[in-house]
């Protein structure tokens, strides 16, 4: 049995089904991200784990104990809120010590543990400041210290980085990850930022419209998206519609139209969808960095550069081909980039391709 489990958990607000049939098992010490666009039910799921929202159905267990109907102030979880929710009338040290005080820990030990927690987030010199005298990043670290000082079984993070600017966010991601590694607390983070989820979690849980669509390691979620939504939501992807025209055992042949065909393997399909037959509509999904630009006439597809974007370490080209507009990402190797309007060839390796079932709305 896993450390934290959600079994068939659902939540409705009136007629609105906010979360439906969520099944999730989190192992001890794991860092799991709930990832999805706003309104996908990820925050509601977190709030049900925290106890601020009652479940409509389903069961939540923590370390073998059923906590589905336990009051939030008896769960003892550490929570970092999106707004940080620091107590404005208390100093940093008082904020961090509050949870220990509520647990009846005596003053000497309390001070010692507050000092340790503040040292962990590198705020030991600001213990006597008040929240309004701190910067955004410092406030966030106070919130983290306040949540981890109580040594909670599970740490819940509700969009912890959304109020920070881009540079600080990146620093805090590394810092959060290293703190979590150091103390080994099981952590669940809600985020809508896919790069944040990919960079710091052990596993990502992709949610869409109240349901979980994929639970996987960041690498697998990126490399082997289970459906159209995941491949679009995590990273960039070129989506080319096609039809299966031949199947021989596990080998399949897909017609992309305009006399372009691609061979593949059923292993390149999502696990649930490997039973395909001739005539099935599929979408070919290939990441921009897995496409290569080569000399005109070479490669599989002739194309013209329509625009280019400089991303620092990379160049992102949009090229026009007979299959439509395609994104190609090239490493910046210090050579002159291709000009807009230049004729190129586009090439790729067949095993870099994934297929997903074509969805009706894209049909």
């Amino acid at each position, binding site marked *: 049995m896993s450390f934290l489990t959600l079994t068939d958990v659902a939540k409705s607000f009136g007629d609105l089904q906010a979360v439906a049939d969520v099944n999730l098992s989190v192992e001890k010490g794991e860092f799991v991200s709930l990832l999805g666009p706003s309104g996908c039910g990820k925050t509601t799921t977190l709030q049900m784990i925290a106890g601020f929202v009652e479940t409509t159905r389903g069961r939540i267990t923590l370390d073998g104990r059923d906590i589905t109907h336990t009051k939030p102030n008896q*769960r003892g979880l550490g929570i970092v809120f999106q707004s940080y*929710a620091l107590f404005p009338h208390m100093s940093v040290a008082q904020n961090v010590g509050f949870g220990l005080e509520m647990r009846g820990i005596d003053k000497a030990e309390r001070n010692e543990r507050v000092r340790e927690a503040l040292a962990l987030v590198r705020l030991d010199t600001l213990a006597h400041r008040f929240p309004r005298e701190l910067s955004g990043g*410092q406030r966030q670290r106070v919130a983290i210290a306040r949540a981890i000082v109580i040594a909670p079984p599970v740490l819940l993070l509700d969009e912890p980085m959304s109020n920070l600017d881009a540079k600080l966010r990146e620093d805090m991601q590394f810092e959060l990850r290293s703190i979590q590694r150091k103390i080994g607390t099981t952590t669940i983070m809600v985020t809508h930022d896919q790069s944040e989820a990919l960079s710091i979690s052990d596993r990502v849980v992709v949610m869409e419209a109240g349901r979980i669509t994929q639970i996987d390691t960041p690498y697998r979620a990126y490399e082997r998206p289970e459906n159209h939504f995941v491949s679009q939501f995590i990273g960039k992807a070129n989506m080319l519609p096609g039809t299966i025209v031949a199947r021989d055992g596990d080998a399949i042949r897909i017609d992309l139209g305009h006399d372009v065909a691609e061979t593949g393997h059923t292993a390149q399909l999502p696990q649930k969808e490997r039973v395909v037959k001739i005539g099935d509509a599929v979408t070919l999904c290939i990441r921009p960095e897995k496409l290569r630009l080569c000399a005109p006439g070479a490669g599989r597809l002739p194309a013209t550069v329509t625009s280019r974007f400089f991303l620092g370490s990379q160049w992102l080209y949009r090229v026009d081909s007979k299959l439509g507009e395609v994104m190609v990402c090239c490493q910046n190797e210090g050579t002159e980039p291709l000009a807009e309007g230049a004729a190129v060839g586009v090439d790729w390796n067949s095993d870099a391709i994934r297929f997903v079932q074509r969805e009706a709305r894209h049909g």
Partner: protein
Amino acid sequence: MASTLPLGKEAGKKPGKEQGEDGHTHESDNGGSGPRDDSTRSTRRAPWQAFLPLWLMCAPAFLLFAALVLIPLAMTLVLSFYRFDPASGPIAAFQFGNYAEVLKSSYFHTIFLRTFGIAFLTTLLCVVIGTPEAYVLSRMRDPWRSLFLLVILAPLLVSVVVRAFGWSMLLNPNGLVNQAFALVGLGPYKLEYTTFAIVIALVHVMLPFMVIPVWTALQKLDPQTENAALSLMASPATTLRRIVLPQLTPGILSGSLMVFGLSASAFAIPGLLGGRRLKVAATAVYDEFLSSLNWPLGATIALLLLLANLIVMLTYYRLLERKYARSIG
């Protein structure tokens, strides 16, 4: 009048000094101290002509204030030094006889003690009733919230005379309250013309002055702080006491200042519900001016009331404001 004190801090800010001032921005790690930018310095050097439009804009309010408050106040001050002769009325003089009379007489001591006792009790009751009321109000959904806000504001919409007579009808020996007591075989009690009647009626009309500032403070409260306290294993009661209440303190503070000041100088309610014998400072002033025609003594009482009110309120303000200035501000 004295009730505008808590607002005085904002209103007293010099115009044009605002740009560089709000130092509590989020990003400045090195505190907001030290020379900020040249905008503050250039403002300081600006010629007086630059402020002329601002002075002109303030002028109507200033003239009104001067004509209706400052000049009468100065005249009252001068009057308080006059000598009173029962045969010929006030005689111009400069002497402290009136002050000595008020400060020595136990009759006036009682009146002042009663005045501030009533004001204190009213303030206390308003805090005790108004704070939970505001909290409940902020938790209500909209059709109900607007309705109850109207109920709270209702006393302000009714003339003070009508309101006082309403209370008098409820509280008189044959009134509804005593009829209710009679049903269970109690009473009748003397409720009208008591300190109790004055306090009840004052609380009734002063409650909005407490509820509104506390409600404003509640709007600024991050509701997640309550959840944060719960998640740290605080009980709901502890959360209210340790997390919510301290954040409401600025609202309670300014509410109490308003209620105290208005109650201590209230005239109509104590006059109508306290009867002729139960005098407070404001009704005593009225009697000196209009019954005894001893204007100098009336002026003295009025000024002493103002002074005492100022001292009480400023002390209170200093004590609490200083405690919370740094954290909540």
